[in-house]
């Protein structure tokens, strides 16, 4: 599928389905180390994005990404709302008024999303957060820069999966999980898992 505004909208609809399917899994991951709301909150946000897209799909990919950002910020709450909202907002700003995303623009958008999340949440790699999924996702995407959009996103999703898996062995240093310290070891970070789920949904939608 071409990465037009409609293509990005389709990817977000696919993401909403995936998040709804995994709502309970994300709640359970969060229950182990936090407060059991991550799946609920993201599901609420993505459902709202789908509703907003039903009213009207913005004209550019950037417009769609910005709509996703503002919806997530105003509907999700918690830490996930501002963090995912910032990721989509920075990605939107990066792609400007392009009518269609190509691979270089997609890579720029992914890098901007990562930088935005790090700036807002002040987390670095190894803190056991969504950043641990985003860093390997971006670097795997950069490694396939000569591929198609679908190949780049698949590589990103693979990288994010590995990154999410790596949080199992980490001592969390940000967010509510940090209060647990060493007792959180053995649990996957829910934000890293949802990042991997979202990138996988985008990759599948791009096929």
């Amino acid at each position, binding site marked *: 599928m071409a990465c037009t505004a409609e293509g990005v909208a389709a990817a977000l609809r696919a993401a909403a389905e995936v998040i709804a399917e995994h709502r309970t899994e994300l*709640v359970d991951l969060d*229950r*182990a*180390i*936090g*407060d*059991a*709301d991550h799946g*609920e*909150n993201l599901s*609420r946000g993505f459902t709202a994005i789908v509703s907003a897209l039903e009213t009207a799909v913005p004209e550019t990919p950037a417009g769609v990404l910005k709509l996703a950002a503002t919806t997530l*910020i*105003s*509907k*999700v*709450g*918690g*830490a*996930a*709302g*501002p*963090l995912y909202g910032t990721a989509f907002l920075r990605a939107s700003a990066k792609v400007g008024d392009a009518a269609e995303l190509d691979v270089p623009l997609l890579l720029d958008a992914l890098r901007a999303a990562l930088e935005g999340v790090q700036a*807002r*949440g002040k987390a670095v790699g190894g803190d056991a957060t969504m950043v641990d999924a985003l860093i390997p996702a971006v670097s795997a995407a950069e490694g396939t820069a000569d591929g198609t959009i679908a190949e780049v996103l698949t590589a990103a999703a693979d990288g994010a999966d590995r990154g999410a898996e790596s949080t199992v062995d980490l001592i969390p*240093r*940000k*967010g*509510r999980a*940090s*209060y*647990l*310290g060493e*007792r959180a070891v053995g649990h996957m970070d829910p934000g890293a898992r949802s990042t991997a789920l979202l990138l996988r949904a985008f990759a599948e939608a791009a096929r």
Partner: protein
Amino acid sequence: MKKIINDPAAVVAESLRGLAVAHADLLRVRDDPALVVRADAPVAGKVAVVSGGGSGHEPLHGGFVGPGMLDAAVPGPVFTSPTPDAVQGAIAATTGPAGALLIVKNYTGDVLNFETAAELAAAEDLDVRSVVIDDDVAVKDSTFTAGRRGVGGTVLLEKIAGAAAERGDSLGAVEALARKVIGQVRSIGVALSAPTVPHAGEPSFDLGPDEIEFGIGIHGEPGRERIPAEPADALVGRMVEAVVSDLPFESGDKVLLFTNSMGGTPQLELYLAHGIAERLLAERGILVERRLVGPYITSLEMQGISLTLLKLDDELTQLWDAPVRTPALRWGI
């Protein structure tokens, strides 16, 4: 899960509707975004005191809206911070030229969302400042954690900042007082059982029949360590030691002692614990001059208690004693 609810997604909205009809003389509830606002807001010439956070900690925060305490409370979904547009709505409904003080508990989501709201308000030329309370001694405060959580001290902070605003202090003065309170208030909590978040439908953590979670937060997020259940003397002793040694509180200090039920602990046990805490403080020469005992910052039906100590001086005592008229705290009016 057995709860007196309809749809888990509608719990907060339906509860707020009840709060509104029960206390129509004190507050108004607005929908989408959800806000609890003083009935007479905005109060001309007065600094607005606004707080909020996830629901499920009742009476915090909606129960503290009224003369002498909060101008507005912003309830998020259960255990989830409200969004920036909700906080901004509360600021807009209460804030005039005197400005507003936002009282934020140190949780990543609360800090991020309130920070964003303060930026939005500043863009509209409103004088808005924030203080972040972080009184939980259970959490290691270092650059490698999110820092200490804001817990029981929040109730005392909201009362004192609210009283200062009510007597006409400037925004700078209310903020300075708030920072003073944050500097000298400390808390610790324990859990005997887990809460069940309505949308999750099962307990937030598993605790054996003979286990206590020591250093629990107000969201039922697991605490610092798990210890075997022990008699109240030993448990309260452990809690008093954790709080007193942290600031530290010293012999001759005048304090307010706040013994809080996390929601599921009955008054019988709460007063029992309070009595022990007072005795242990007296043995250390710490003078309990004011008390608050009851469920004021809760974690749904979680069994457990928290102890909060605030070091008092004449001004703080006077502000604590100042009249307050809210659904959950009421004296002097």
